């Protein structure tokens, strides 16, 4: 039977449907929303990098942390240090945002979202993409996506620093513990979401134990893998939640720093 099929050239053709898709649902809605969400994040991030109101003690805006140069106000410096020195005078965010940015850019979830919404490759399942040729991640530049795990290592460091910032937000301006403001809560929630997103990453899942074939020989790593797998199952949700939380937290601190938000428990 296979022989008969192979010999008949007419049977080598797919159905010659002329339309791009026969889907009747609103397949364009998800990529449109994703496009809007990601573009909002990019525009906000671009503005935030160059905005100088990033410190409202005890809060520091996440997009400017860690602040590593002498040019940063003393309260904004990580552990009070300025390892970069005084030669760097540009905005602090410009120095470090490439790391969490690179982590999100090469993240397996974000890849899906921007391949679909920005590059339309494909815009939605069973909707034809507009490109004549496709090589995927087999060659430059997209083969660079394989660097993701290195960004993950840096993202862990950034996540821990944001957690440290959130803990410090429970001190008042004089450095006494016990202060709780809306900003403290916002920064704490943001840190938790960032950590949940970071540790739910597919590379983290692989590093903990995914690369092993004998889980039974590595019970602790297997336990870690099981935990990471649970976070990983919600990776998309944590990706969006942490993206908005970091924007909200950053904007909140800047509005406090500018004096726009100035109620008592700010």
């Amino acid at each position, binding site marked *: 039977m296979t022989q008969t099929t192979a010999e008949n050239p007419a049977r080598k053709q797919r159905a010659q*449907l002329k339309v791009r898709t026969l*889907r009747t649902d609103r397949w364009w809605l998800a990529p449109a929303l994703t496009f809007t969400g990601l573009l909002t994040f990019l525009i906000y991030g671009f503005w935030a990098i160059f905005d100088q109101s990033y410190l409202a003690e005890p809060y520091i805006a996440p997009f400017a942390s860690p602040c590593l140069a002498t040019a940063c106000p003393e309260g904004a410096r990580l552990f009070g240090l300025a390892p970069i020195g005084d030669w760097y005078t540009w905005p602090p965010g410009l120095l470090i945002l490439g790391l969490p940015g690179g982590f999100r850019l090469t993240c397996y979830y974000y890849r899906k979202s921007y391949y679909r919404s920005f590059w339309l490759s494909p815009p939605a399942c069973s909707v034809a993409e507009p490109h004549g040729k496709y090589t995927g991640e087999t060659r430059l530049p997209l083969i660079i996506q394989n660097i993701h795990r290195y960004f993950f290592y840096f993202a862990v460091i950034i996540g821990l620093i944001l957690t440290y910032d959130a803990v410090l937000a429970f001190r008042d301006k004089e450095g006494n513990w016990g202060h709780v403001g809306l900003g403290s809560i916002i920064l704490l929630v943001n840190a938790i979401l960032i950590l949940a997103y970071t540790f739910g990453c597919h590379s983290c899942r692989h590093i903990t134990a*995914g690369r092993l074939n004998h889980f*039974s020989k590595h019970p602790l790593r297997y336990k870690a893998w099981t935990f990471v797998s649970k976070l990983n199952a919600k990776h998309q949700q944590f990706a969006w939640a942490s993206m908005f939380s970091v924007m909200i937290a950053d904007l909140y601190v800047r509005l406090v720093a500018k004096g726009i938000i100035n109620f008592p428990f700010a």
Partner: protein
Amino acid sequence: MGYKAKFRVWRGEGGEGRLEDFTVEVNEGEVVLDVIHRLQATQAPDLAVRWNCKAGKCGSCSMEINGKPRLGCMTRMSTFEESETITVTPMRTFPVIKDLVTDVSFNYQKAREIPSFTPPKDVKPGEYRMQQVDVERSQEFRKCIECFMCNNVCHVIRDHDENKQAFAGPRFLMRIAELDMHPYDVADRKESAQDEHGLGYCNITKCCTEVCPEHIKITDNALIPMKERVVDRKYDPLVWLGNKIFKRSS
């Protein structure tokens, strides 16, 4: 409770064909395949459709319903509006034999290209000892009913026929992942997954996962873990160095 539904069904041999309109009776509790069978029985006796179990377990009745890859036997008519026109076409990635029946031999060819399970030479059949946690991951992939809807929906070959030579498709990349994760498989599958079976073509847009009738997390549990294993082998200098220093087998 029955009603008359409007159906548009692809009719033709090979690539040539057209969508034909039918009005056909639908009764409560029926699925799309039931309606296709009623069409055969009442209006189009030569309508070709492949089917077997009618229980979502044989993977025969894969088709595209309103543009989405679905199993005809698992798509309830109650999910559509009574006024809706339901369009039924063959799987778009594979050549049409007749009407809704496609030639899926591409998949059998790709299956043959994957080296089978390769146990260590010194372990004889009957000596395999594995714990449940060691095989659990792979067992998920064994749920596959080979409906080939994942390969059908994958844009790498759906929109680019020229990639069929280089790309095995999600179903068979999942098979490679299944074998690579097996505690007793010693074949080197990482290099070949990337270089011979086209894992790098996958841009993880997850359509395979979306259409899988067995709800296998193809992308998250097979393709991405396999991509990470390939990174270990081909793109991560630290892993390479660690393997050299600690004399680990990769």
